[in-house]
């Protein structure tokens, strides 16, 4: 489980960084999306991975045995919402740049 998640985070980050270094806005946008997936998975894992453990304390439970930390899940939700909004705005900005300049190159001076 831990190894699987670590590999997923690593692969997503690598693909994300590779795409961000492209020179056109659409790959950069996709790269940022992949990077934010990786970051969200990473944040989720910061509360430790436990299988079959709800973030709940049941009534009458005497000790915290089968329990997972709820805070990282709340953090991930916030991060997902913010990241989604930002990516949507960047998509709009990229489209506007494309329609205004006729080019989707991220660098101002170079023509594709």
């Amino acid at each position, binding site marked *: 489980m831990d190894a699987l998640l670590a590999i997923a985070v690593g692969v997503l980050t690598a693909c994300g960084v590779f795409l961000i270094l492209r020179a056109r806005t659409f790959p950069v946008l996709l790269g940022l999306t992949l990077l934010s997936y990786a970051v969200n998975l990473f*944040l989720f894992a910061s509360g430790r991975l436990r299988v079959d453990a709800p973030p709940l304390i049941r009534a009458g439970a005497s000790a915290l045995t089968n329990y997972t930390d709820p805070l*990282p899940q709340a953090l991930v939700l916030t991060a997902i919402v913010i990241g989604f909004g*930002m990516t949507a705005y960047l998509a709009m900005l990229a489209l506007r740049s494309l329609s205004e300049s006729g080019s989707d190159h991220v660098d101002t001076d170079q023509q594709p």
Partner: protein
Amino acid sequence: MNAHAPILPILIPFAAALLQMAFARRRCQRSVGLLATALLIVATTWLTRLADDGQLRVYALGDWPAPFGIVLVVDRLAAAMTLLTAVLGFLTLLYASAGFDERGKHFHPLFQFQLVGLLGAFLTGDLFNLFVFFEVMLLASYTLLAHGGGLARTRAGITYVVLNLIGSAIFLIALGLLYGTLGTLNLADLANRLTLPGHDQALARLAFALLIAVFALKAGLLPLSFWLPHTYSAAGAPVAALFVIMTKVGIVAILRVQAIALAPAMPDLLDNWLTTLALATVVLAALGTLAAGRLRALAAWLVLLSAGTLLLAPAQASAQVSAAAIYYLVQSTLAGAAFFLLAGIITAQRGSTADHFTVGPPATAPWLQVAFLTAAITAAGLPPFSGFIGKLMLLMTLREVAAGPVIWAVLLSCGFLVMIALARNGCYLLWKNQTSSRPAPAAVAWQKVTATLLLVAAGPLLAVLAGPLSDYAKRAATQLHAPGAYVAGVLGTAAAKSHAEAPR
């Protein structure tokens, strides 16, 4: 009422933004915005006076006690920064309401949301909440940057948004690492747990290094600063003037994290590299002022120059240096904003040559020439205005540190370069003219004149008030560099002890 004072600076612009979205008529939005920012000045002045008793005011949102809930923490530095933000917000909004706000949609609510983000980032005592307020600030700034339209702004916007999205990702990685190693995101609780054994020190160190890197991106430290002149010179005049305080958010965040969390637990994290990079930023910015082709680009390089100068402070970890830095921060923010507003007026006055440093119709209004001279003297750090006093205070306190001679040499020679750039380019803008093509200069709206003159007048005014202001800065710096009192104030003395079990 006093108990709720810390939340007011966030609630006022937030309520104003909601009202402005409900009443979409421009005139309504303007009056609501100006009224709200004026009210904000009153509220933050009151908060600053309250904070000056030296007590740490902790406001538990939803009454969840720290470290379980989110807290706002008001000390002297945070209160002073909210006051500075409120003053800058009011003046730039006054300038913008002379017509800039009509060039696009939703300017006024976004402006208020930008203020919410800025003020929240100064007030919060929780790192994840700091991330959220950063994002509020950035989302509003993305749209404000594009306000007014034009290809240059869209292009600058893409670079700016992509860079800050990457910054946000790194911020979240740092927060995940911190939560994974120390089990908390409250700054006071983090500082407390860092001093205890039982956590992975290498990981915690890495997390703080990433965090500092993100703040350095916002502040404009050298390898991460190339976006700044490009972005700020593309933004509209009032927007760029408001953006001046955004670099300061990063600087204050570095100062605070260094003083509260790093100084007791890992004091060597900022050694060796931060002073070098800050000096390199200063040199680059000084060369940039010489190379700038137009006034707004010159103003953007000046913002970078002051950011580099201020970033000399955190690495020294001394209350005297921080006190000088706080005074310098206040005066450089107002002086930088004054330059962007002046650039806006000069652009409108000179027709097609705009604010480019070429021969063209001069900006002839006498008040404009005096204002430019005053702002230039303040920015170049020449006597007798506040720029000189701020730089002098920094230099005097930095004399004691190991790198002192190098810092003196770099700051003084770069000040000389800035003086040359300002003198040469001021001549182009105000004196060298083509008499044949001199059009009658357009009348400048009173809002623009008032806002610009008030910001320019901050130079002499802060010099006159330098005594009380630097005393306040000294008290603020002393309070900032007392991490024990901060931790005890936020967590409570009993909680600080009971919390002392080993972290996960």
